[in-house]
């Protein structure tokens, strides 16, 4: 991989502007609602647009036809997607794109083919090391919790024998799905001696990026639902006063704001760490910190968004619930807060190293 293009404020602005095409700031959620609870849960036309916007090649080197941007750019995009509750699995597709063979890559980058990672074999695990087998071009695998799997044309599958590219419609492949709270689904992928192409490279760094991008998506979820909540507090009246003038609600809002800003600082620091080419251990610690914070903060902020709205937020037609459901799905994806705290405790150096 080449050194990513450093992210300046201008690059972030450009990304934001481009994100507005799919997830306009302050836009409504009609498209998102229409896609809920149906397979494949995404809009193919939008996916092609995503390809045109260049997001799928965001992490692919410029020489290979990508944008050559870094993790900071990935996280900036993820935040925008989260604020728009975009259901398309853009981040998962983007982080593995640099691993794909050139023959596949072109169709992926222009949005013609959707290739998603399938790495997980048990619940609540970060472990892509695998019981799946790739032997003589034949893949046998059992992968779980593949988000939005039904929209994929193929999967990049981790095995004990390296990575394998698998077509979704290959013989010996089956996919079942379970609906998720946010209106999407998890796929369970089974392959039995299915024809498959070996792919060079390791999935580890891409999974760290996916984890951090999930945290950044959750940041966007928080930003947007908090803005919605502040609007409500500023306008809704009870007992003849704006409810946002009640001090107990003001203080709660202040605490939520603090958690959101801690999340932002944590994610920004982690993205900079990854872009600076930190060691795997240092990267893992930074990512775990950010994901643990984002998961807990997102559940807190979305829960409190419901509480601060009162009854109206308990209706499905009000948007606050959409954010809660999204946080429920993403909080534990790529590892729960507890799992990441445990990883941090295992990997981080003693904290008082400089307290001599």
């Amino acid at each position: 991989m080449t050194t990513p293009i450093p992210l300046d404020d201008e690059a972030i602005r450009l990304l934001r502007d481009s994100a507005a095409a799919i997830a306009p700031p302050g836009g409504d959620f009609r498209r998102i609602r229409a896609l809920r609870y149906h397979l494949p849960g995404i809009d193919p036309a939008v996916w092609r647009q995503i390809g045109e916007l260049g997001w799928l090649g965001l992490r692919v080197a410029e020489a290979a036809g990508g944008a050559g941007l870094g993790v900071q750019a990935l996280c900036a995009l993820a935040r925008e997607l989260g604020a728009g509750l975009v259901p398309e699995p853009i981040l998962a597709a983007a982080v593995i794109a640099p691993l794909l063979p050139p023959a596949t890559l072109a169709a992926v980058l222009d949005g013609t083919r959707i290739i998603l990672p399938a790495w997980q074999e048990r619940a609540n695990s970060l472990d892509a090391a695998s019981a799946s087998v790739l032997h003589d071009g034949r893949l046998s695998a059992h992968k779980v919790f593949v988000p939005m799997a039904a929209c994929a044309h193929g999967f990049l599958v981790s095995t004990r024998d390296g990575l394998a590219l698998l077509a979704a419609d290959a013989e010996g492949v089956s996919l079942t799905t379970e609906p998720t709270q946010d209106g999407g689904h998890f796929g369970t992928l089974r392959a039995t001696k299915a024809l498959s192409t070996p792919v060079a490279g390791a999935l580890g760094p891409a999974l760290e990026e996916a984890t951090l991008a999930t945290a950044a998506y959750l940041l966007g979820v928080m930003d947007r639902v908090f803005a919605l909540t502040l609007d409500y507090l500023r306008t809704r009246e009870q007992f003849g006063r704006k409810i946002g003038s009640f001090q107990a609600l003001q203080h709660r809002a202040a605490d939520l704001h603090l958690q959101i800003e801690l999340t932002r600082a944590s994610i920004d620091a982690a993205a900079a760490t990854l872009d600076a080419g930190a060691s795997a251990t240092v990267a893992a610690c930074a990512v775990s910190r950010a994901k643990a914070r984002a998961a807990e903060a997102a559940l807190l902020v979305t829960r409190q968004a419901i509480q601060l709205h009162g009854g109206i937020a308990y209706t499905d037609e009000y948007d606050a619930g959409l954010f809660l459901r999204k946080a429920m799905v993403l909080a534990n994806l790529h590892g729960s807060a507890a799992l990441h705290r445990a990883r941090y405790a295992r990997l981080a150096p003693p904290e008082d190293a400089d307290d001599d």
Partner: protein
Amino acid sequence: MTDPHAALDQLDDAGFRALVRGWLRANYPPELRNPPHRLHLAAARPWYDRLAAQGWLAPGWPREHGGMGLSAARQMIMIEEFERHGCARLPDHGIVMVGPLLIQHGSEAQRARFLPKILSGDHIWCQGYSEPNAGSDLASLRTEAVLEGAHWVVNGQKTWTTLATDANWIFLLARTDKTARKQDGISFLLVPMDSPGISVRPIVNLELQDEFCEVFFDNVRVPRENLVGAVNRGWSMAKALLGFERIFLGSPRQSAYALARLRRLAEHVGVAEEAGFIERHTRLRLDLADHQALYEVFAARLRRGEVLGAEVSMLKLHQSELFQRITEAMLEIAGEAAGLLEPMAGNRDLHPSGLFIQARPTSIYGGSNEIQRNILARDVLRLPG
């Protein structure tokens, strides 16, 4: 007519409790135990009918009106046993609200007309209190009733009306004097749901269930005699009706139910023996046990016939937040399954996301927890306004 409940009076409390428990085992429809959602009338009807046939629909009503005439202590025992058995809540507004209202404030004619229909299950009632701009601040309600000859003409909108689609009657708070202080111009009306001008819109909630409705009133004509008690005196009647009910919002049942499921979930996902889980689970167990002790303090006062003051707000506050914390623990240990729409492994007892969402509104309905804390600060701790 002999008193069908005279035999109950011969039992001591333990005997009465055993009788109720045994009867539930023999008579409660097993498929309705611990339903995940409020049941619609069609589903609850067998249970309604069985209670009606036994004469046990209305434990608190006096016997001369067809109730069981139980003391507060005996009512508590029944409730405890019903909760313990996981009995579904009935569409019980007629029994719990309208009956007591009419017995205390209704006319002889109203009692004769409505009470038997409630006991027979012919009249199913829903409650028309909340409005879009009158939730926590209920007294600011704006649905109005204007007297025109022999009829009250009602216009306005109610919301959060539980199971309005199942009901054939609604009891309604409406503004009958717009010039008075906001609590002083409100009256109680009894309205058939099939009156011209009423329309009902179910609201899908976060559980994707339609138990709540909006009810719209467009020049609905209600016979003058359907007003309960004195005109403009509805507010104090409504407040008094809530008195006995308030303790039940603080019942440990939901939290106990959830805590047992947290344990099962932990076993299912394999963390039940981890130190971190045990510590968190133990904290929640202790919170529940202490909540039960505090609940028992208030229940004992009810049994002694005391009136519960504002302090009972504590129970609702603590139970709802405990219930929520338990479901938050569920979500955290559930891994990716925290995001599933349906129960895990097809087992209704393993549904962390479902219980998590179900717990959300408990800190909002029945007076939000913010309101409960205001009440405690003002009426119990006597802090300045």
